């Protein structure tokens, strides 16, 4: 029976859902926290563009931005942002085997393999970017 007909049964008891229902259970609060990491993905994207523009303007502009980034408050903020983005990465990669189920012929690729494959890709991307920026 379609839920839109529920109001026509006035003797049924319907519990009101509080706005902050997700504060009542730890797993729900963690879920909302996980979803809010996207806000920091957007922040990081903006900052990346700002940094690229500073690089483009020249060494002086770049150095100025690096100085600002190096101030203790800003460093602390970005360490927090890094932790939040790591939370995003780890929760995202851990859920990959749930969505990606592949069959090779008759056999299913084990979930562990999908998981390890994703983590390996993450390590590879991290290494690649680090190499590009530091040791090249």
């Amino acid at each position, binding site marked *: 029976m379609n839920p839109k007909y529920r109001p026509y049964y006035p003797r049924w008891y319907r519990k009101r859902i509080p706005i902050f229902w997700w504060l009542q259970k730890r797993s729900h609060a963690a879920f909302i926290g996980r979803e809010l990491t996207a806000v920091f993905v*957007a922040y990081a994207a*903006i900052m990346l563009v700002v*940094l690229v523009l500073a*690089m483009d303007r020249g060494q002086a502009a770049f150095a100025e931005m690096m100085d600002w980034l190096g101030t203790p408050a800003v460093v602390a903020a970005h360490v927090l942002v*890094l932790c939040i983005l790591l939370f995003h*990465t780890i929760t995202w990669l851990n859920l990959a085997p749930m969505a990606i189920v592949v069959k090779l012929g008759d056999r299913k690729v084990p979930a562990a393999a999908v998981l390890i494959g994703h983590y390996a890709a993450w390590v590879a991307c*991290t290494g690649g970017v680090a190499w590009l920026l530091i040791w090249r």
Partner: protein
Amino acid sequence: MRRSREPIIWALFGGGGMASAFFMPVLILVLFIAMPLGWVQGAPFAELQALVRHPLTRLGLFVFISLCWFHWAHRFRYTLYDGLQLSHLNELVAVITYGIAIAGTVVGAVLLWGVG
């Protein structure tokens, strides 16, 4: 009944989630923490600038930034529905979140085009 067009934005959300999961931590760690604090020297400035100005880098960055914006938009839209129970404002929330994502993408495109 017509099938929802959600797959398009879900694909963008998924791509953005995967891309940001793989690349954001190292970018933040190196560019916003390690280099400013002097933990790593980094490549010489001239090389970094040349790297950033390279058309492939700018294209890659544009795609990456744009995916990140749509990842944020889609996720934030559903967080507003679930967390603040705003799903009755469905059209408004969708227009605002994806509108911001489109704006961010366009601004990013314009700025990156002007680099170099």
